[in-house]
């Protein structure tokens, strides 16, 4: 599904959740006592989740904030990120049983953020990498994958580097990156800065596959050497095996 920017924004308008701005956080803190009074009444009630819904805030993020606050109060030192991450992944590690329950509720009910969703994202990403690998093998295109590249000491590693470049829609492709997500403006720009341009800087032009589509207007760097596709390309031109006959 490739959307125009206008189409995407229309959807985003509908789905928009409260951005984690300072103002909303302040509101959150003011209402913090509600949690305590709430859980005292009934430890099993989904107080935290409701709070998040009321605030129009992602439940897992809400859980994170509460947890941070909780740990800060109990241990007197700001908790490290890894500890919090680990507790979010496994709420049973949270010393307070009620909070553990509340956090768990938030996490399982959040379909956008949180360790569970991250895990699903990772799985989908991996799935598509395997899919891409199979397609490459099927097309008889030889490549080096990320692990092989890392072993060779490459400092930046796309999913696949083609050992022999091909052309897609008239553009030379040296590498292919698989993204099992929708390419919106924000994520694409982050990816460009952190990954795609770095690949270009080292290996030349390449292809990004956003398996769940992307905003058409973002595919504007084709001439520069970054090509976007929403599926595995069909018209791949390989280096001809009988150049002389052409």
């Amino acid at each position, binding site marked *: 599904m490739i959307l125009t920017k206008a189409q995407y924004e229309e959807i985003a308008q509908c789905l928009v959740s409260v951005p984690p701005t300072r103002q909303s956080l302040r509101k959150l803190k003011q209402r913090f006592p509600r949690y305590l009074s709430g859980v005292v009444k009934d430890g099993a009630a989904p107080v935290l989740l409701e709070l998040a819904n009321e605030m129009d805030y992602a439940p897992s993020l809400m859980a994170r904030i509460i947890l941070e606050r909780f740990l800060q109060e109990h241990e007197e030192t700001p908790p490290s990120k890894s500890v919090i991450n680990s507790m979010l992944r496994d709420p049973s590690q949270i010393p307070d049983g009620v909070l553990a329950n509340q956090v768990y509720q938030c996490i399982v009910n959040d379909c956008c953020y949180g360790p569970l969703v991250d895990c699903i994202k990772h799985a989908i990403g991996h799935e598509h990498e395997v899919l891409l690998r199979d397609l490459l093998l099927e097309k008889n*295109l*030889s490549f080096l994958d990320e692990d092989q590249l890392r072993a*060779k*000491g*490459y*400092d*930046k590693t796309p999913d696949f*580097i083609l*050992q*022999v*470049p*091909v*052309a897609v*829609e*008239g553009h*030379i492709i*040296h590498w292919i990156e698989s993204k099992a997500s929708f390419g919106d403006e924000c994520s694409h720009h982050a990816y460009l800065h952190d990954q795609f*341009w*770095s690949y*270009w*800087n*080292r*290996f*030349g*032009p390449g292809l990004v596959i956003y398996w769940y589509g992307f905003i058409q207007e973002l595919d504007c760097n*084709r001439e*520069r050497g970054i090509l976007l596709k929403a599926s595995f390309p069909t018209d791949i*031109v*390989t*280096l*001809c*095996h*009988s*150049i*002389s*006959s*052409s």
Partner: protein
Amino acid sequence: MASPPGAEVCKRSGRCSGRSASGSPLPDRTGHLAAEPADPARVSSRQRQRLRLVALVYSAVMAENLVPNLFLELYFVLQLLTARRMVATGDSHPDPGPGAPDSVGSPLFRNVHDCVFFAVQVLERQLQVLSYLDKGTLKLLAENERLLCFSPALQSRLRAAYEGSVAKVSLAMPHSAQAVSFQPETDNRANFSSDRAFHTFKKQRDVFYEVLREWEDHHEEPGWDFEKGLGSRIRAMMGQLSAACSHSHFVRLFQKQLLQMCQDPGGAAGVVLGEAPDVLSMLGADKLGRLRRLQERLLAPQSSGGPCPPPTFPGCQGFFRDFILSASSFQFNQHLMDSLSLKIQELNGLTLPQPEPSEDEGESDVDWQVRQNGGERRQFAVVMLSLRLLAKFLGFVAFLPYRGPEPPPTRELQDSILALRSQVPPVLDVRALLQQGLQARRAVLTVPWLVEFLSLADHIVPLLDYYRSIFGLLLHLHRSLVLSEESEGGMCFLNKLLLLAVLGWLFQIPTVPEDLFFLEEGQADGLEVDIEASGRGLDSVPVVDQHLLYTCCPYIGELRKLLASWVSGSSGRSGGFVRKITPTTTTGLGARLPQTIQGLQAQLAQAFFHNQPPSLRRTVEFVAERIGSNCVKHIKATLVADLVCQAESLLQEQLVSPGQKEGDPAQLLESLCSQLCPHGAQALSQAREFCQKKSPGAVRALLPEETPAAVLSSAENIAVGLATEKACTWLSANITALIRREVKAAVSRALRVQGPEPAARGERRGCSRASSLAVCAAISPLPQPQPQPQHDSSSLCSCPHQDVLALAAGPRDPEEGVSPEHVEQLLGQLSQMLQCRQYLCPPAEQHLAKCSVELASLLVADQVPVLGPPAQHQLERGQARRFLNMLLSLWKDDFQVPVPLQLLLSPRNMGLLAATRPRQWDLLLFLLRELVEQGLMGRAQIEACLGSLREAQWPEDISKELATLFSLFLAEPHIPEPQLRARELVQPNRGTVLAQS
């Protein structure tokens, strides 16, 4: 030394154009004034003489390189040619009356007519240089109506030069930024001292390209400033380069990127221009050329800043210059200088192929041509342009601390600065490199980059002893590059022209003292380099072409612009000169259309090498080059050799067929070639097959075992493609010429083998079919086996023959002799062998022919010792006659070489006959008659032989008998033999006869 007049003129026109020493009228070139028509008739005869003299001196000064910049002088002359009108200044001289004497002080150019007259006079003497300019300039010159008016002869010579010129120069320089690829061998963690350094460099690489991309996007926007836009980011990045080793990594990246982006890609990469393939598919080839010219007109800067622009950093070079300036990092500059120096030395020392002195002419000749085709010049151009780029940046960085916008220091300050600077060692020992270059006759490579380096020097540099000696050497070289001197093994014309252009440009750069050219004369002593050193160097190889000349010296294009502006300014009658831009529509240029398959494949092949180690590319190119060359040799040895064989048999057929006269050899060759050359087309398919078969194995043998299969197979295919392209390009251009050359060589070889000189051939030509057979036999030296049960070799046959002759000639034992049967058998064998021809070679056949004539002589003289009853020691006459008949038929039908029948009447053989007792002339007469009868010898020929025989000194009686023979032979009808037998005469003095033999 005082400035020569030419230089004075030049300085006036070039550096302070529009200023005049006196108040004399000035040529005005401003466009808004209508051009005044120039008329040769309005140049007075006195003025003519004067102008002609000055033009003569001026041209001589130019020819001897006594002016600093040849092209500046040409520019000045063209300015005169295109002057619109004269503008009187302040106190204009009153035109002296017709009778007034011309004082030296009176102005040389009084009006436009004088200017044009002088210009044409000079141009006439500069035709050689002019004819090497690009086609566009030649066209404009040839079409200049003033030039036509003043010198139709010069105009027609220029037109001829224009029509003969192939020097189309395209100045559009497309470029596409491509990143330097990451190579694990040099770029992975193992090459860094710490993880931190590794990761820092990782980030730097990304920042560098980010900055580059931003520059590409914005640098043409008005108001965008490099320093404001990127300066702080660059400095922040440079600040992270703490470890020294990181600096060297970054410098390597910087330098590689510089070379990749700023080289002339048209010459270097050989990739199709920009979007050309797309447009081609839309417009077709003919319109593409126009489109490209239009692109050039729109993209090429309107003016490169006059005929002597100061050094600039055009295009992408600007990014690298500004990067260095913004970074303002001492460490970076130092590392950059180190790296540039190393690379310059490496490239400068590169062995560039030279024409091998050909010991085996044919082969190396082919090799050289293949390589020429495969980019000999291109390789030189790439190396030279890289060197110029690197040297320019080295000069820029090295002299950066000393260069500023302020005017040159005053004399008083100079001394202290000189004292300081003269003890600083040079960044690179360019003097030594220059000396080596001159000695090795590689000035054409070394001088252009050295000039780039020196062009960025500051005002003090030319005053330092070290650099002054370099300028001395360059001046010396400049003087020695006399264009009119062309010697075997000397420097090629265009090589010289390039050096003159770059040196001339250097001498005009503001930082080089104006008087250096005239003051430094003769100071090159002690550094004198023997430029005339023996041995062929790069200088004598035609490595420079017009494209390279104009790429290195874009300011030469100012000549064209000057002429073009004259055309566009001279209104009305110039409609045909300025081409209008006619709009051409394309369908949706915005959307990218599929590229042509070849273009995309070429791009893919280029891209393939991008991320592979450089050695892979070198290997593939090497294999392609060798296989391509071997392929040509192979085709020569097989296909061409076969065609030569065919040519030989065809030639024979043509001559044997009845009614066909032996034609002029040149004509024969022509018809043969027209028959055979079309077969040359097979060469291409055979070449493809050869390259297909041979290249993969060679690539496989040379690449590492561990090369991945896909990479290997692509490398093999690219090698096959390149080798095929090389071979086919050469073959399609040269196969016809090659076949022609080989066939011609074969024919002339055959004619040489055949022996006699053209005079003798002419004689034969007139005589008979037998001799024409002989000719064609000689042309066909190869055996033509015919189905024969028995193969006789000429050696087998000639041995017994010789025996017979030896026995006849004696001395012999009494019991020795030959039987008639033996002679008969011998002649039979000879006939068979001649018909079979399997083992026959022309010399053997010639030998046998001679032997057979000798045998005939012996038979005629009855000198064959016959075995048999003691009484009968001589051959029976009837038998002898039969043998002679057999010989006649051999001569007539079997021999294919000319038979030296005139030997029959040689004094020696005649002596044999004279020695017999009783002498019998009948057999000789019979033989002579039969020879004429059967067309083996012309009557006139025999008469001539007999005539010359009679002139020799013979005993009285023999002379008489010869005279009788002569008269008998002349008598037309057959005379029966008994009559002759009766005419036996007294025994001659044997001694005398023998003495004559």
